[in-house]
Structure formats: C-alpha cells, structure tokens
C-alpha cells in the first residue's frame, strides 16, 4: 500500500525531528542538569515515533517486538537521565544560574 508507506515515512521524519531537537538541546544548554533533561524527554519521544513509523512502513513486522522495544526505551532512557542528575548532585556540581 502506497499511502501506508508515505504515512510511515512522515511519522519517521517527525521522530527524526525530535531526535535533532534533543541534539540541539545537548549542544546548546549550559549545564549537566539542563542537558540531561532535554535529552531524556525529546529522545524518548523521537525514538518512539521512529519505531512506530518503521512498523507502519514494513507490513510483515511483529508488533510484539516493537511494543517490547518501546516499553524498554520508556524505562531505560529516563533511568539513565536520572542517574546523570543524581551523580552530578552527589559529586557537588553546582547548577547553572543566569
């Protein structure tokens, strides 16, 4: 189906947009706390949209595996971001103030 192909490509492009937003936040923000915050939120949404677009593009994919990967990303990326902030707080890195 051709329109399914186009819809999947559109969803994947929106996911790549959110990944680029995460990269811009990682480059431009001034602090470890701000950077981990931007990375966690935008990257989770971006990788979820990439997986859904791939599932729409490919007809004979197993949705159980894709759902499992989405749940895994939802668990692990915020845990890693929390680890960054926890380690920065424990090691005494001071937050950025304008």
């Amino acid at each position, binding site marked *: 189906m051709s329109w399914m192909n186009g819809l999947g490509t559109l969803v994947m492009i929106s996911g790549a947009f959110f990944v680029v937003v995460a990269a811009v936040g990682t480059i431009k923000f001034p602090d470890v706390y701000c950077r981990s915050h931007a990375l966690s939120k935008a990257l989770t949404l971006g990788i979820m949209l990439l997986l859904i677009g791939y599932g729409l593009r490919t007809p004979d994919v197993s949705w159980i595996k894709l759902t499992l990967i989405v749940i895994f990303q939802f668990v692990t990326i915020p845990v890693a971001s929390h*680890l960054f902030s926890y380690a920065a707080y424990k090691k005494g890195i001071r937050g950025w103030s304008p």
Partner: protein
Amino acid sequence: MTLVDVGHFILWLALFAAIGGGLWRLIVGPTTLDRMLGFDMITVTVGGLVLVFSAATGSTDYVEFVFILSTLGFLSTVAYFYYLMQLSPTDTNFNPEEPP
C-alpha cells in the same frame, strides 16, 4: 527518485547531524558526566539509524539489533556510574570542574 527516497535522505541527514552533535558533546564536554551524556545519546541515535536502514531495505531482520544496542548502551552507562559512585567524595581521580 520518488518522494519516499527524498524522505530517506532527510532521515539520514537528520540522524547523522544528531550523531555529530553527540560527538561534539563527547569531545568538548567540560565534565566527565557531559561525555557520558553524549555517549548515551549516540547509542540511542544509532538504534534509530538501524531502524532507518531496515525501513529503506524493507527487511525485518534488524529489529532485535535495536533492542540489543540500546541494552548495551544502558548497561555501560549504569556500569560507569556504579564505578563513579564507588569513589569517595575527596578522591583525586574525579574532579567535576575540570576535564579528566
């Protein structure tokens, strides 16, 4: 060159730009935590790149590879922070304000 090929080109360009941003943060990050943050971002984005490749070729053989890749990145991050938490606060091996 159809419209879907243009979409693939945009996807390659965007994800490689994101990996370049992560590499830049990995190189110039002022503390070691910034470097680990760039590493974490690169692992997840490489998973997205594998997804774009398998969507362009239409195969379903690489879905498990995304899972394994994100698992390895997360476990290496956790192992690094476990090592970092074992150091005492006055250890000279870790100075948060200077590059290691």
